[in-house]
């Protein structure tokens, strides 16, 4: 029965094998172990999924072992499989395995091949802990672990200090969010005495509400989610994380890790249903982030950065759905997003690989004939993200927009309007990317143009699979599949007649975005540059990413550095600690110096001292005798 434990441990075995032996046993071994074990985990997940359906919808629970018994408290490590975690596990292991296979082609010439695969497997292990964990405690272990794996992989080429710094930034920003997560966890434990998800949800859905503010806990846990899922204000690490290898960006920063925040909120839907304040906050931040990131993506020139901001924006959509109570819909978008975003990132990787390392869109163009498979898969995924029917993105994004408009749990036309406009922008910048990379006349330099070649089958095959999934994946309506455990919110009956018109409007939005992109970028960058000059101020603001990084640096970074340098280092460490040590040494030295003056070498002085002592003893004896 320990199927769930097996699923979790298979990638761990991969990490250990590749980590310890990989460098010595060669590329073949590493590839087989590194890809094979995740594939096995995927097959095990399928088996678990079938077992689940057979059990009439009840969840599978496994207690792996007792972690600690402290005082009267027992902490177990347990795994929990219901429809939500089954779906997440399938995504993680399925898309994960595909990306592992892709990596065998992409990272073929890298000297750190074994290390790469061991880190990737480590990531899978922690991610599975996260989604399969029965309690917040196990989930948190996975949460931290994926942060670690992310750091290791972003800074994979650590010889470059900029890349290493990006890894550090990701980890530290996550840590800030984790403070909120921990506080929320502690509050829950203090009130309920348990970390288990099912118990927490039941407690909040039950007749007697627990003695803690659901909104407070909700906000605290959401702070953790903003860190992990790159929402405002902790989004700053994701664009920098593009310093890592592209398959890493695809797996961690598109398909799986960044969706952990969404998973957490969805998993605790029982709590969030009772926390209207927290839910509203989530919806607002979600839509704001979506809009904000989309505007920045309009002017990005690095192919991966566009996709990074696009990910932030799409995550914003997911949080919007969570905020209005449509938990199943958010998970639906996680599912479709995994397919098309992974396809886009891997496609970008293929482009970069073909061009021998070029990432700047301004130096691409005219690639659609040279690398057709990459082009067509990229195009399908772009259409999916833009929400064009009948591709996957259309279904999930459409549901989000509908519930943003009509949900009784916080939906409003304002949210809908901003989200729709963002969808327009999404279509625009994605098609802009497509055109600039592939369809405009070539702006490549001759060297690169010569070297352009299609990527190997290990890469293009995966792209094809993901493109197919992006196309047809939407037909599996995840939100309906999850309805037994995550009921969809009530919608305002008065607005129900607007559902179909809104769908049509959404499609039109996508097409308008496409048309606008084609208009501006059809023949290259000329028209865009003129527009940029006309709106120079706006362009500068967007190119500077709204100067958020600079703001953080000034408000947080520099004062902290100042405090560290001047107060802790200068005063605390140097003066206090070193000073006290030096002071002790100086004291000893001074005392020794002064005491040493007794040794004058003068015999008579010594005699004087001796007799002084004798007289003192005599006096004392006489006094006290």
């Amino acid at each position, binding site marked *: 029965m320990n199927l769930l434990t097996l699923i979790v441990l298979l990638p761990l075995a991969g990490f250990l094998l590749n980590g310890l032996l990989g460098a010595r046993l060669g590329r073949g071994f590493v590839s087989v172990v590194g890809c094979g074990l995740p594939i096995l985990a995927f097959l095990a997940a399928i088996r678990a999924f079938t077992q689940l359906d057979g059990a009439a919808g009840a969840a599978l629970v496994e207690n792996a072992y007792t972690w600690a018994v402290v005082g009267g408290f027992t902490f177990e490590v347990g795994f929990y499989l219901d429809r939500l975690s089954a779906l997440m596990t399938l995504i993680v292991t399925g898309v994960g395995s595909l990306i592992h296979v892709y990596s065998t082609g992409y990272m073929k010439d890298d000297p750190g091949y074994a290390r790469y695969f061991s880190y990737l497997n480590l990531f899978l292990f922690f991610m599975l802990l996260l989604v399969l964990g029965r309690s917040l405690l196990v989930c948190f272990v996975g949460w931290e672990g994926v942060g670690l794996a992310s750091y290791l992989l972003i800074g994979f080429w650590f010889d470059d200090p900029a890349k290493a710094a990006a890894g550090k930034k990701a980890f530290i920003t996550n840590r800030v969010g984790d403070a909120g997560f921990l506080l929320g966890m502690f509050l829950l434990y203090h009130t309920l005495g348990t970390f288990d998800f099912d118990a927490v949800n039941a407690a909040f859905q039950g007749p007697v509400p627990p003695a803690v503010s659901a909104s407070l806990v909700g906000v605290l846990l959401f702070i953790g989610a903003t860190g992990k899922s790159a929402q405002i204000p902790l989004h700053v690490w994701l664009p920098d994380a593009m310093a890592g290898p592209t398959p890493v960006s695809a797996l961690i920063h598109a398909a799986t890790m960044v969706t952990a925040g969404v998973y957490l909120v969805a998993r605790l839907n029982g709590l969030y249903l009772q926390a209207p304040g927290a839910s509203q906050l989530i919806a607002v931040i979600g839509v704001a982030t979506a809009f904000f990131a989309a505007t920045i993506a309009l002017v990005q020139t690095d192919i991966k950065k566009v996709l990074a901001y696009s990910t932030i924006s799409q995550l914003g959509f997911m949080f919007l759905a969570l905020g209005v109570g449509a938990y199943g819909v958010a998970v639906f978008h996680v599912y479709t997003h995994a397919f098309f975003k992974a396809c886009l990132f891997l496609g970008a990787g293929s482009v970069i690989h073909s061009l021998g390392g070029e990432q700047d869109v301004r130096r691409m163009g005219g690639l659609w004939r040279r690398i057709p498979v990459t082009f067509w898969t990229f195009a399908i995924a772009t259409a999916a993200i833009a929400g064009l029917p009948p591709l996957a993105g259309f279904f999930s994004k459409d549901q989000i927009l509908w519930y943003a408009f009509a949900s009784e749990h916080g939906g409003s036309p304002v949210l809908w309007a901003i989200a729709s406009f963002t969808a327009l922008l999404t279509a625009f910048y994605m098609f802009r990317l497509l055109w600039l990379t592939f369809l405009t006349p070539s702006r490549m330099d001759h060297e690169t143009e010569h070297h352009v070649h299609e990527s190997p089958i290990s890469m293009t095959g995966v792209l094809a699979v993901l493109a197919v999934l992006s196309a047809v994946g939407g037909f599996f309506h995840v939100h309906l599949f999850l309805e037994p455990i995550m009921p969809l919110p009530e919608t305002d009956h008065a607005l129900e007649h607007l559902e179909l018109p809104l769908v049509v409007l959404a499609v039109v939005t996508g097409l308008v975005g496409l048309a606008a992109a084609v208009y501006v970028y059809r023949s290259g960058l000329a028209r865009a540059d003129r527009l940029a000059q006309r709106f120079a101020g706006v362009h500068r603001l967007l190119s500077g990413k709204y100067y958020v990084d600079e703001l953080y640096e000034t408000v947080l970074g520099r004062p902290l550095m100042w405090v560290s340098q001047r107060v802790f280092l200068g005063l605390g460490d140097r003066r206090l600690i070193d000073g006290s040590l030096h002071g002790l040494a100086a004291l000893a030295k001074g005392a020794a110096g002064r005491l*040493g*003056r007794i*040794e*004058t*070498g*003068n*015999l*008579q002085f010594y*005699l004087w001292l001796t*007799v002084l002592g004798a007289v003192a003893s005599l006096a004392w004896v006489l006094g006290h005798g």
Partner: protein
Amino acid sequence: MDRTQLLLALAVSLFSLGFVGVMVRRNALVLLMCMELMLNGVILSLVTFASRSATLDGAVLVFLVFVVAAAEIAIAIPIVLLLARQRRTLDVGAWSELKG
């Protein structure tokens, strides 16, 4: 003042005077002689008490002290001589190498 008190006071005075001499004088031989003065003070006190006892034991002890004093001076003076020959002076200030 009775006899014993006088003699004890004298003994203490001789001892202290000898002590001052040892502390203060710079000539090595004079130093030795002041030490002899101290010793004499002690012997005086010993004799004072010996003369008041019923037996001869105190006196015998005094005699033994004389012998020891003689032996001591027999060694001390040659040592001082050698030291003086080394530094070509009798000044005790010449010997102060054990400085800290």
